[in-house]
């Protein structure tokens, strides 16, 4: 166990597939999850596109990594913040995104929502409150 638990915020601002950032971020999150830190994921701007449901890359010859977001709960990543303003600008709502949950072992594996819809000002406060921000 680490002596000091730090609050890490992974800030995701890029759409998937067009660039490698989204996948790189996800890999770093999964690797970092092994270090018992307090991890939060933020999705703003085009980053919200990473979480859309129904992604099917069979015709573009790239790996579909959207199913991997559903494994985040297994990796103890329970705080996923999505900015409302970013969704609005893109004509999206939470219904367009995957329903991500984590299972509470102490409550007989009860599923709890991981995604929290936040406003831009709340997102700013989350960034302010983080010890470290990793940008992708």
């Amino acid at each position, binding site marked *: 166990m680490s002596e000091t638990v730090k609050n890490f915020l992974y800030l995701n601002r890029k759409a998937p597939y067009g660039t490698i950032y989204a996948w790189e971020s996800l*890999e770093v999150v*999964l*690797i970092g*999850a*092994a270090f018992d830190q307090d991890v939060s994921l933020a999705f703003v701007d085009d980053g919200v596109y990473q979480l859309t449901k129904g992604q099917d890359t069979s015709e573009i010859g790239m*790996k*579909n*990594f959207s*199913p*991997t977001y*559903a*494994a985040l709960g*297994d*990796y103890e990543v329970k705080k996923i913040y999505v900015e409302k303003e970013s969704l609005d600008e893109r004509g999206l709502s939470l219904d367009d995104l995957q329903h991500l949950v984590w*299972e509470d*072992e102490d409550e007989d*594996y009860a599923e709890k929502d991981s995604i929290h819809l936040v406003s831009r000002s709340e997102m700013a406060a989350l960034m302010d409150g983080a010890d470290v921000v990793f940008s992708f």
Partner: protein
Amino acid sequence: MAIEVNGKTYETDEEGYLANINDWEPGVAEVMSKEDDLELTDEHWDIINFLREYYEEYQIAPAVRVLTKAVGKKMGKDKGNSKYLYGLFPYGPAKQACRYAGLPKPTGCV
């Protein structure tokens, strides 16, 4: 590198993991375990099949901690612990079992 299974040759990486996950067949696990002097039992196969299902669903090979927890949920706490899993796969349940299952090395393993 490569591995020979039932007369077919499959490409592997420098650590012995299958280069192409779609090449996998049960014989891959048989050949790999024989090279490690390990005899596969039903208990081994439960874990190998579990890993393949996990990959199918999430597109990643789980880290050992995640595997342990997930096995515990699916097969009970008596199997979802390090002692049991290391007993089956002495080289490390995630690393060794993933290799037998044809998956890439778990993300975050060194």
